[in-house]
């Protein structure tokens, strides 16, 4: 299999409402990523980009509209989407471009401008539900998360306080991230006292609505070695989509992630992920999801995750730091861009360039994951140096 590395990365700040248009956000991230590895657009063979629903931006065929902002003008440009899992999956999509042997250098760009949707991006999630059998109930996105969170907590006897610990961990990490849209540390009490949105979900259990963009540059082995002395290799990729009949699954365990993770670990030759992996960036749009996903990623035994979290196992200086970037909870959640932000974090962490956020102990192997749709899809990327 052709070896592919990440050689450059760039982000915009994540903000509640950005001045820049979707194209301009894409441009900023793209330009920063290109500059980070000393490349210009002429060096780029193709663009793999990702963005979640079109409804936020209110633009049909959004990939076409974004193409010039992503550097895709007069190039092979292809947009992928798997809902919230799009960010990490766009990197898988980019990997397909290079690992296939068809291209040597691929730019991966993800953008989301949720503030375009008025009055609130939430309203656009009504249309993710089955048009005939579910939408008539006027569901909102919080319902499904609340239903999943409740089932997860019930199964293992976790409390809301347990879940809040993940929010506190990630938000604290995020304070050090230059893209973060937050400035203040929060406590478990803050989470518990924030208003209930859809029990058991309270406001601070949830990541914010954000605008932002992120980009990475992928290159085939010989090119990557020429561009940098610290290429971060894509060691494994996996992705899985479960049935759309989401109410017929037991929501306590993310079996779709179980499969996606095993696919990526198999490719990476990883037998004991919980021992071999040094950094985890599980997808955390909600605090419980970070823990739920640690279990699906096989990085924590089912039902034992809170215990490990309380013991500091997942802290930045713990055995297996969880979301050292701050994650979606701590940095922000411009959906697809947030997934690429996690990949950027692995890139900087494994190269020892994460500054104040740097995980101690010379990490060698990291995993990033994203999740979405009707709680049914996961994409996983394992990187190593």
């Amino acid at each position, binding site marked *: 299999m052709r070896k592919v590395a990440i050689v450059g990365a760039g982000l915009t700040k994540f903000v509640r409402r950005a001045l820049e*248009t979707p194209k301009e956000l894409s441009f900023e991230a793209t330009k920063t990523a290109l500059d980070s590895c000393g490349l210009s657009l002429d060096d780029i063979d193709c663009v793999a980009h990702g963005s979640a629903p*079109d409804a936020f931006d*209110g633009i049909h065929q959004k990939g076409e509209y974004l193409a010039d902002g992503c550097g895709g003008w007069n*190039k*092979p440009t292809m947009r992928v989407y798997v809902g919230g899992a799009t960010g990490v999956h766009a990197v*898988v999509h980019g990997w397909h471009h290079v690992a296939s042997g068809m291209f040597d250098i691929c730019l991966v760009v993800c953008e989301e401008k949720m503030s375009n949707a008025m009055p609130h991006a939430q309203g656009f999630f009504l249309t993710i539900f089955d048009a005939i059998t579910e939408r008539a109930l006027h569901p909102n996105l919080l319902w499904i998360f609340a239903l999943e969170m409740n089932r997860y907590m019930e199964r293992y006897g976790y409390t809301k306080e347990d879940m809040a610990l993940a929010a506190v961990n990630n938000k604290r990490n995020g304070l050090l991230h230059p893209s973060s849209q937050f400035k203040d540390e929060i406590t478990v009490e803050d989470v518990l006292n924030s208003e209930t949105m859809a029990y058991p979900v309270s406001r601070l259990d949830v990541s914010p609505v954000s605008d932002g963009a992120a980009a990475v540059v992928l290159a085939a082995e010989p090119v990557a070695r020429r561009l940098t002395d610290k290429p971060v290799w894509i060691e494994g990729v996996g992705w899985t989509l479960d049935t759309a009949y989401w109410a017929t699954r037991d929501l306590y365990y993310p079996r*779709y992630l179980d499969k996606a993770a095993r696919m990526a670990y198999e490719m990476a030759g990883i037998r004991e992920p919980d021992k071999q992996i040094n950094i985890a960036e599980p997808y955390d749009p909600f605090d419980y999801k970070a823990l739920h996903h640690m279990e699906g990623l096989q990085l924590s035994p089912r039902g034992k995750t809170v215990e490990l979290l309380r013991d500091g196992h997942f802290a930045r200086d713990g055995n297996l730091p969880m979301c050292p970037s701050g994650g979606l909870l701590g940095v922000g959640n411009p959906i697809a861009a947030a997934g690429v932000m996690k990949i950027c974090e692995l890139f900087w962490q494994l190269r020892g360039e994460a500054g104040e956020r740097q995980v101690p102990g010379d990490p060698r192997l990291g995993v990033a994951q994203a999740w979405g*749709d009707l709680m049914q899809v996961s994409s996983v990327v394992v990187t190593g140096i």
Partner: protein
Amino acid sequence: MSKRVAIVGIGCSGFRTTSTDLSYREMIFEAATKCYEDAGGIHPQSIDSFVASSEDFMEGISIADEYVPDQLGAVLKPVQSIAGDSLQGLASALMQIKTGQQSIVATSAFSKVSNLSHYEKVAAYATDPAYIRPLKEHPYFIAGLEMNRYLHESFSTREQCARVVMKNRYNALSNPRAVYGAKVTLEDVTCAEPVSEPLGQFDISGHLDGAIVILLASEEKALEMTANPVWIKGVGWATDTPNLDSRREGLGGALYAKLAADKAYEMANIKSPVNEIDFAEIDDTFSYKELQHLEALQMCGFGEAGKLLEMGCFEPGGDLPVNVSGGSLGAGYLHEANGLQKVMETALQLRGEAGKNQLAGVETGLAFAWRGIPTATGTAVVLSNRL
């Protein structure tokens, strides 16, 4: 890069202007079942990965990829959606096999455009929200602008465009999967109600519901699975700027088609497309597009397509049969499923299964799809029945 990939299964369903009896799930299930049977009765659990192509606004579903897996038998399998024409989806499937991680990949797309009240409003939503959309023009004005500029630059004529419609709709008469077959006259087309002059009502392909599933496999698997694999020799795609006013070669040409074809020909090791390609199924969303695309795909020189058409060159019996299936003008317009329709018709010809439309002795065909207005994205695929 040596890994070769073939089409090993083809299935379709629907291909009607309305399809009220079936949900899109049921329609795709039918196409998938036919495809898997065509590939020797493979169970979808043995398929490694799945790619669908769709756009949310066409379906009225946000994150429409949620609803992909069940009807393809892809539950708990690697599945992804491409927000693009299904030929881009096919290209993604091809890349997946070439990585070596997957051996068998299904690719699918469908159209349920009949469920949509105003396609043109959705198309208008693809134009720039700040400086095109507020003009409140019917989006076909872009086709009118392009057509006028193309005719001006290439010295092609209105009548030549009309002859594309006559040819394709006539060809459609003998294709059971085509619904707009008709014997139309030059006057029928040129005197039809204008939409955005010079573009008239008859220059625009009609909408169609349908689902297509195509199965790809690596060389090793393909040879096990089928006696008549159709090899994907080359594929290329390209996007020009979405801004109408800043396309490098203006609105008269189709640079995206040229760039896509360059890549596909390079990969297929085709030096002289006009000599090495036996027939083509290429985008004819609007009548002038067939001529413009033929030139951009280097099937003839710029400004020559109209004259060659008049000489009968692109008829089923001509030197380079084009859209023998009827194309989009004759068969109907399937939106993001257009690309797979073109691949399907090309592959059926190469297998010798094109029925009354079968061309004799064909070995290499070209399929090309464009994403429609206002985009400047196209994908070209070179297929052959010879390894």
